[in-house]
């Protein structure tokens, strides 16, 4: 590659490494040190009932978000790229809106619609379904914050792939469903894996929106992040550091798993 032929001044990479290391590694090292310092206390805090309950709720939310977006995100991306109708561009724009919103604003938006004074409150009360300060509210905001990732990645890949393979299969008599299952789906697998990692990491780490809509009620709507927040407020540092570490480890594991899957589907 010709770009390698130009020599770079040696201080440039050093400064770049230093900047990234100071900004990112130093704080994470402090966290690791904090966990190591109170190892026994951390273990006790993490195996307590409320901690396990909050963590399992967070994992459930991430799983639901992944399952829903694997189906509806792919459907949306397919419609955006392969279908054609008035207002299609608006869908692309809407899918990106969650990226522009503060988590608190997201929680608030669901709160004003589903809360006591909201439009949908009477409807959901009749259905006997509690949204605000309840698990369904957590599901809704988690789906909202993770919405853009699957749609974005699959849209980009579908646009790159073009339609020639799909058209060839259709010409040979494949039904639209067969075309999707045998041609489109295998082709978009790499996008599904990388988007899945982003969905899971975002769902695990969401804080502001679940705090507002769920109220962080212990045993009902407490998640791993709201657990950390309360631990900090109550000066329970081993619990806060421990759960933070667990969240980072789970996110890193999600990225590692999905990138291994991605390599597998590519080969």
């Amino acid at each position, binding site marked *: 590659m010709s770009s390698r032929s130009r020599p770079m001044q040696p201080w440039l990479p050093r400064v770049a490494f230093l900047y990234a290391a100071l900004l990112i590694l130093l704080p*994470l090292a*402090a966290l690791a040190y904090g966990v190591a310092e109170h190892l026994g206390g951390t273990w006790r805090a993490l195996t307590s009932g409320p901690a396990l309950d909050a963590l399992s709720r967070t994992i459930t939310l991430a799983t639901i978000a992944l399952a829903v977006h694997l189906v509806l995100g792919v*459907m949306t991306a397919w419609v955006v790229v392969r279908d054609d109708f008035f207002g299609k561009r608006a869908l692309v724009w*809407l899918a990106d809106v969650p990226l522009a919103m503060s988590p608190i604003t997201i929680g608030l938006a669901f709160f004003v*619609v589903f809360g006591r004074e909201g439009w949908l409150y009477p409807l959901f009360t009749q259905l006997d379904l509690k949204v605000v300060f309840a698990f369904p509210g957590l599901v809704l905001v988690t789906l*909202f914050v993770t919405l853009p990732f699957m749609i974005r990645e699959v849209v980009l890949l579908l646009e790159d792939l073009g339609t020639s393979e799909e058209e060839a299969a259709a010409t040979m008599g494949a039904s*639209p469903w067969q075309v999707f299952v045998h041609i489109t789906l295998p082709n978009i697998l790499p996008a599904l894996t990388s988007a899945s990692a982003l969905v899971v990491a975002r769902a695990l780490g969401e804080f502001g929106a679940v705090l*507002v809509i769920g109220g962080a009620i212990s045993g009902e709507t407490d998640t791993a992040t709201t657990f950390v*927040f309360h631990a900090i407020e109550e000066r329970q540092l081993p619990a806060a550091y421990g759960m933070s570490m667990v969240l*980072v480890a789970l996110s890193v594991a999600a990225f590692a798993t999905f990138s291994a899957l991605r390599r597998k589907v590519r080969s």
Partner: protein
Amino acid sequence: MSPRKARIALRTGVVAWMVILVVVPISGLVLRALASGPAAFWGYVVDPVALAALRLTFGTAALAATINAVGGTLIAWVLVRGKHPALSALVDIPFAVPTLVTGVVLVALFGPQAWLGQVLIAVDTPIVFARPGIVLAMLFISLPLVVRTVEPVLSELDPAEEDAAETLGASRWQVFRHVLWPAMLPAVAAAWVQTFARCIAEFGSIAALSGNIPRETLVASVYILGELEAGHADAAAAISVVLLVLSLGLQPAASALVERRYARV
């Protein structure tokens, strides 16, 4: 079901899904902000504490975007012109760190319990529970955004142009000033805008470390939460709408900047 009918059913389903998940809550928020009329809306925005929170948020976000525009562009340049897989992995770490955890780790490092924090407090430059902490949290969360926005544009710059300038006798500084800088400016500007938009929305990391003192370290997102908890949902919605309109307005500006650059290539 015929393929045509299936296609229309799919289209309808997808539109309904997006309307329920995105359009309904956002319209609810906007209507709530305007529920008591435009005068009340304006009153919520110009409330002194709200205004101070907005000013602080915009100021710190602009500073963080500027610092990371420099640092992030430098990292992107090093990544594009050399092979540094460790640096590349390092840059993506913030994507895997929940924002609240970012706040927690910064307190672990700079908080009053940590020795580094004690040193900084002793020399009267506290980071945590003060404004520098807000900027630091914003720098951490937005670094990958800057690097990954600038990187694709930098990778398209042709080293031959730099060689040509050098052959004509240009110094390294002149090559940067007259060849590289004009070519990378739109991408850097786009990254600045995106980082600014991301930072004014930030909540988790800042809530954990800024101390949230009104008029001092209270940012807009934490102010919104406080208003909601105090039962002032209308005021919370009004400030939310200000943030939302700004972010949504900035997003197309950022993509226009990057696309204009692509259009010239």
